[in-house]
């Protein structure tokens, strides 16, 4: 595959998806130093918010160390070249959050829905576009439906005004052929001026391979996380992706050594545990479960005595989608009761 000379925009996730393994506790100072490091390394786009997007601060997903607005106002003025994006999940955040983020100076708004529910994004995508923002439609858990069905949803988001559409492998379940089929069809059928993006998780160690497959199929924006941060086993590790791009002649504008220094010197030291493939994050990728469920399942295991793996498998069987973190403790309690570990309640 000859992709030499292709330019790909890398979008760093360490300060948004990377909030998940940090239980949303990254401090403002840590955000500032990592963002400045990424900016100096030439990373063009950096996402900053609660792990579950604008308005994610909650009992259900976790209260962050600072508000979205505090993070954005701290980071954005420090950026020399990099632009900053925010994620918004309709049903969690609202257009009020979008307006706030725009006021803070984000240039990109990414509106995320489950892959079959694109029509809840109309008001947010409309507004983002109307405000002149780079407006991205982000179709999560894209492994759950066939490429043709994903295309229908992508067309909806495009019709609302999104200028870029993502196929998002939230569970880290896809294999390169799955990526090729989805990205290829989107590239083929969406308007030529609509950009295509791919967001991977490394749960089956496919982050880089899937991202390269996406580029080969026509994606020009790739989400990565410096130091391999991110929910589950992390996103596509940014420094590894850059190294592979360099070897293949794909242009990113990112300095491989600088960015790997950021990973080693700034990101790794703040981790609470190594973000890697262990039996639980492997289960996410193997069974197709939303990556952010990982820590919740581990906490439920500790509290209710049912293994995180079994809880995750059950959530997968019940076809839980992103945002249903509330069902993890519920499922663990029900499983514990069925096994006689908990006395019968309710």
């Amino acid at each position, binding site marked *: 595959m000859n992709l030499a000379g292709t330019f790909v925009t890398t979008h760093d996730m360490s300060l948004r998806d990377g909030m998940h393994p940090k239980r949303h506790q990254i401090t403002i100072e840590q955000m500032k130093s990592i963002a400045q490091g990424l900016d100096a390394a030439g990373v063009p786009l950096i996402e900053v918010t609660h792990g579950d997007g604008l308005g994610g601060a909650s009992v259900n997903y976790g209260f962050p160390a600072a508000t979205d607005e505090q993070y954005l106002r701290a980071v954005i003025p420090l950026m020399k070249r990099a632009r900053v994006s925010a994620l918004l999940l309709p049903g969690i955040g609202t257009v009020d959050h979008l307006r706030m983020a725009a006021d803070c100076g984000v240039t990109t708004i990414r509106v995320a829905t489950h892959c079959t529910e694109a*029509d809840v994004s*109309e*008001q947010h995508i409309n507004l983002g576009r109307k405000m002149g923002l780079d407006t991205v439609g982000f179709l999560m858990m894209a492994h759950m439906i066939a490429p043709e069905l994903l295309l229908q949803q992508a067309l909806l988001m495009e019709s609302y005004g999104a200028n870029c559409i993502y196929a998002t492998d939230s569970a880290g379940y896809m294999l390169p052929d799955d990526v090729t089929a989805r990205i290829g069809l989107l590239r083929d059928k969406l308007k030529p001026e609509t950009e295509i993006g791919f967001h991977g998780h490394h749960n089956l160690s496919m982050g880089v391979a899937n991202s390269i497959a996406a580029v080969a199929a026509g994606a020009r924006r790739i989400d990565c996380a410096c130091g391999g941060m991110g929910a589950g086993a992390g996103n596509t590790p940014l420094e590894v992706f850059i190294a592979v791009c360099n070897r293949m002649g794909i242009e990113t504008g990112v300095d491989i050594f600088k960015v790997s220094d950021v990973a080693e010197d700034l990101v790794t030291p703040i981790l609470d545990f190594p973000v890697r493939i262990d039996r639980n994050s492997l289960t996410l990728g193997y069974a197709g479960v939303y990556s952010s469920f990982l820590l919740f399942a581990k906490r439920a295991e500790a509290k209710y005595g049912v293994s995180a793996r079994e809880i995750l498998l059950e959530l997968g069987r019940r*076809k839980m989608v992103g945002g249903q973190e509330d069902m993890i403790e519920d499922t663990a309690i029900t499983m514990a009761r069925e096994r006689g570990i908990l006395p019968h309640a309710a």
Partner: protein
Amino acid sequence: MKKIKCAIIGPGNIGTDLLYKLRRSTLLEPVWMVGVDPASEGLARAKELDLKTTSRGVDGLVPYVKADGVQIAFDATSAYVHKENSDKLTGLGVMMIDLTPAAIGPYCVPPINLKQHAGKREMNVNMVTCGGQATIPMVYAVSRIQKVRYAEIVATVASKSVGPGTRKNIDEFTRTTAGAVASIGGADEGKAIIVINPAEPPLIMRDTIHCLTADEPQQKEIEASVHKMIAEVQKYVPGYRLKNGPVFDGTRVTIWVEVEGLGDFLPKYAGNLDIMTASATRTAEMFAEEILAGRLPLEAAAA
């Protein structure tokens, strides 16, 4: 026994389900179905059930309000047209029960404040949202025991049960529900999250209620209060069930419920829609009792 005559505005899924429930009521009699599309299946269905129908909107009903003795109207259309509908009918002394998110009247969650509204002669009450009806009773069950400084609800509904109106303006759901979780539920601050799940077969509506109490939760009292409230809601939504909890974790109190509908016109999994039509019916019945007992003379409101 004399029944109070009702009109339903909006012959869609909600309006039709409401019609089925009203036909069972011993206090209410549905007499008019109002739509805007002459080809509407809902209007045809209502006609078969011997209701008068019009496809000219509320204007088609107005000339018949007095002669047909319509005293209560349900609006199951959209927030955009509700105010106009309401002004036209309350001006004739018809009480409005608003199932749209317009919320120009006070919120009504039957087991919490229905009696209060009946006493105040409100001419327009709003049924909040499906998520609100399903969760606010639980917030209240905690807040009537002790101070709740923050309440958050997560409503998960089957994709097939979420109509285009809600999808186009999902923010209205989160805003309205969050506001009522605080003001009617009795929390200092409220937050609402909605998740739409496309699983097949469709999942039954699930709701999770998290409360953060100001002080250490009084576990026994809260448990008893929650069970009592579940029984109250079951009086009009028999499929309202406590699935798990209350779980106590520091000052967090979490309750998980499931809402299965009656399956009148809507499928049983759509408990989110059923709890709206059931709450609206319950509300109207309470007003009907007051009207029939002569305690609630309906007067024309200034439009």
